[in-house]
């Protein structure tokens, strides 16, 4: 009883983590299913058919590729624009700071349906044709804010004395940026890009409003939900999930190793590892 009371929080915490993964398990298990009816909702018979023939259903792979293309283009542009904003916010003084903060925050606080609808209203009024371009424009718009937040946190968490030291050693501003600032911020930028890609790849609502006849992977799933989602979709989603998980865990591991190196510093790196006063 005493043991239970002491570990209650831990037990609940583990239970919540398990709860978070229940639907993931369902998606994975159903990727090995051979559904009896048209809906892949109940496990009927084990089959590797979907895995052996990932593109076996027309439209699945082309929508998947479309989503990857849109994700790559939107992520590159949004990461660039967002990183620049983050540098401006942390390193420069300018007028209209609170308006800027608000303009960056609001896209994260606006329901997707409102953003999708208002952007569609703009494109309709301009008679701008809907398609890949409009979806990419929309994705860049909603990813920028997440990039700003991620990179800004990294910049603020950086030890300013590392750059000061470089300046003391007569590095010119360009060298300071290239050899000190940029390498230190890079993990934050890469993390932001990964987040941006996953947001873009998984976005349904905003894309659906602005896609016209273009079919992204989530739009394909939405359409298929009415007539039965092909098992291939589960297999592809499983692959995406595992690839993303491996990338994040590897990044964590590398980060962990670096920290360990900083915690047991060689004499020369000792100063850099001191906590900030």
């Amino acid at each position, binding site marked *: 009883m005493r043991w239970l009371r002491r570990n209650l929080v831990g037990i609940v915490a583990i239970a919540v983590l398990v709860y978070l993964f229940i639907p993931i398990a369902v998606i994975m298990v159903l990727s090995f299913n051979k559904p009896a009816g048209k809906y892949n909702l109940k496990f009927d018979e084990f089959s590797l058919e979907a895995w052996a023939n990932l593109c076996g259903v027309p439209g699945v792979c082309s929508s998947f590729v479309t989503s990857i293309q849109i994700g790559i283009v939107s992520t590159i542009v949004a990461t660039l624009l967002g990183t620049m904003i983050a540098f401006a916010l942390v390193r*420069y003084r300018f007028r209209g700071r609170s308006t800027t903060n608000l303009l960056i925050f609001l896209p994260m606080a606006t329901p997707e349906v409102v953003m999708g609808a208002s952007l*569609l209203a703009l494109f309709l009024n301009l008679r701008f044709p809907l398609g890949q371009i409009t979806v990419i424009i929309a994705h860049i718009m909603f990813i920028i804010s997440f990039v700003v937040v991620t990179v800004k946190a990294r910049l603020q968490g950086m030890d300013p004395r590392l750059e000061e030291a470089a300046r003391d050693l007569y590095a010119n501003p360009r060298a300071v940026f290239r050899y000190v600032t940029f390498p230190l911020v890079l993990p934050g930028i890469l993390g932001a890009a990964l987040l941006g890609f*996953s947001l873009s790849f998984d976005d349904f609502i905003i894309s659906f409003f602005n896609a016209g006849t273009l079919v992204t992977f989530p739009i394909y799933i939405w359409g298929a939900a009415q007539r039965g989602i092909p098992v291939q979709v589960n297999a592809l989603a499983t692959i995406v999930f595992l690839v993303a998980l491996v990338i994040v865990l590897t990044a964590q591991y590398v980060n962990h190793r670096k920290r360990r190196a900083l915690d047991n510093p060689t004499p020369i790196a000792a100063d850099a590892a001191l906590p900030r006063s």
Partner: protein
Amino acid sequence: MVAVVPTSGVSGAPAPVAQRSSRTGYLLLFPGIAWLAVFFAIPFVTLFLTSLQQPVPGKSGRYMFGLQFSNYSDALAEYWPLFLRSFLYAGIATLLALAIAYPLAYFIAFRAGRWRSLMLVLVIAPSFASFLLRTYAWKTILSDEGFITSTLNALHLLPEGRILNTGIAVVAGLTYNFLPFMILPLYAALEKIDPRLIEAAGDLYASPITAFRKVTWPLSLPGVVAGTLLTFIPAMGDYINAALLGSTGNRMIGNAIQINFIQFRDYPTASALSFVLMAGILVLVFTYIRRAGTEDLV
């Protein structure tokens, strides 16, 4: 015990790095901010104008500039129950998410030790699997023959005898889908609390419950408020859960906006509904900003 209070470098205020005021700052800001202005801010103006449009006489389905404020009263007269239902579903889901997220966030912040970063990865990992498929998976989990439904039915706990295609399923889906948005801000707030404050309460003979009520909970309030906003807002506007897990009697305001915009092509009604939804959310956001300022937003 160590005398130095550990301070995290990631506090809200701008870092004390030499802040330069020059053209470079504006040049760095300009492209991104312009993008947001053109494709986020200006669309709200067009949305507002669209919400006031009137039909072109003689041509059904075509609209032109107008000042039809009656679009708003018509839309609200028809759809106010959906606003109410969205508020209710999103509200219940947010409270449930808070109750579920708090123990996990607390555990990660205070007890997880070296497992901390791994557990944080596990919190966001489910988001790597498609949102639509995860929601669809709840159809399997909550199905009429499923374990959960039959257990609850055996206990006579389900008024409608089923979960799927009822409001319960929609709320369950919303709670699940937006849970990470509750866990992460809660964790961020709890992690900043100096554990010695809680120890001190214990040393002064506060029971664990009193210590939680008087120390931990008040100090975690910024996270509770942020998490509530970040969960409630997307849940309020969501229509995927209602569409996949509910029946026609469980439609939310997002469903009405989507159907009017994309199927009926009744742009003025859809725009008026979006605008009312956004106005309600802006009230929430500004109430929050008046208390906390804008610097901690981003």
